[in-house]
């Protein structure tokens, strides 16, 4: 019953107002190519807390409820760009295709889903992006703005390894303290504690073969 719910402003309008309200904030509307077309607003870590406070306190938005915090792992990816040029070769004009490749370094993202209980609208999807997937995996904690983000930011820290600066109590929450990996990262290698599976197939079969090849088993 969307007509009963007051619609939220468009992301573009929110961005324009934010740029006026928070000086120097780098904001980007990230389009979503999927059917739902739910765009999101990316904010740089330095201004994230100021932007979050504006989103929470602004009279027209009043995004007072942070329902969900999650992480996304983007690996290094190779982007191919094809350029078509026309050249004259042997007296004939021909179309040539030139493909260049460049690698986009990977990064991690923290994604916040914000709603307004007071105005009954949402969600607004807020993103923060880290510089890289190693030492620069840092964003600003929004727990000072939405208290409900505390445990979920700890979970993103635990499973993705994103460090939330300004978090009051940043510790692992699901895995044990001695654990060193971040299991939700796409390049995570799980411990080889595989065991007999009656009908292995696909990835499980590949895993079984790897295990029994390593253990010197009889069938691999």
């Amino acid at each position: 019953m969307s007509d009963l719910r007051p619609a939220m402003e468009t992301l573009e309008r929110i961005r324009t107002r934010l740029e006026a309200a928070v000086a120097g904030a780098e904001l980007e509307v990230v389009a979503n190519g999927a059917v739902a077309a739910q765009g999101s607003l990316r904010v740089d870590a330095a201004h994230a807390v100021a932007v979050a406070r504006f989103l929470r306190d602004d009279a027209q938005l009043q995004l007072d409820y942070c329902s969900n915090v999650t992480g996304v792992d983007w690996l290094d990816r190779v982007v191919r760009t094809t350029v078509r040029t026309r050249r004259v070769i042997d007296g004939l004009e021909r179309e040539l295709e030139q493909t260049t490749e460049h690698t986009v370094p990977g990064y991690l993202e923290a994604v916040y889903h914000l709603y307004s209980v007071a105005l009954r609208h949402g969600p607004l999807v807020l993103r923060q992006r880290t510089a890289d997937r190693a030492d620069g995996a840092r964003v600003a904690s929004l727990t000072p703005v939405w208290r409900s983000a505390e445990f979920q930011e700890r979970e993103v820290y635990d499973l993705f390894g994103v460090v939330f600066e300004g978090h009051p109590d940043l510790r692992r929450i699901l895995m044990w303290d001695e654990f060193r990996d971040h299991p939700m990262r796409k390049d995570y290698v799980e411990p080889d504690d595989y065991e007999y599976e009656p009908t292995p197939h696909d990835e499980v079969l590949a895993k079984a073969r790897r295990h029994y090849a390593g253990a010197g088993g009889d069938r691999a």
Partner: protein
Amino acid sequence: MEEGLRRELAQQGIVTTTLADLYNWGRRNSLWPLNFGLACCAIEMIAASMARFDISRFGAEVFRPSPRQADLMIVAGTVTKKMAPQVVRLYNQMPEPKYVIAMGACAISGGPFKQGYNVLKGIDRYLPVDVHIPGCPPRPEALLHALMALQEKIRGQALTGPARPRHLQSEAPSEFPVPQFGAHDLEPPHHPELWQPPAVVGGES
């Protein structure tokens, strides 16, 4: 004593028994479980203790909140790797004689979480399990069946000789090593004397 004579005497009101029978009768009809649950299987375990299924018919209704007073550990639910050391420690704190029922797909093998990174693929990697119950979750009847299977196992145990139960063997272990939290997995990943990975892979090869 011959079985026929024994039955005839019983009809006349004279009950005869042996020390082993009496000892095993006492052990198997007072299996007090440890009061803890790990996941949804625990709900079925609770249902088994309520009036409809009534586990007290088998002498196992006294759920003890302390491992010092418990005889039976029902591992009811998913054992995560973070929880496994605590489960082993609770088992070590129980006095002999003590028994373990692994209840449900997770406790016996990891179940639907078998391919995950954070779930122990069966508590039999660290503890000597007496009865395994499949099911996700097993119904209370299955738990009662497992209890009866355990009672049958106790009934048939000889008190002397090499096949005598573990608590009557002075050299047999009563405690098992508690796994440590490692940087990537539990250390060790299993107790090598209790459990070894099977050497066969099914399916196409």
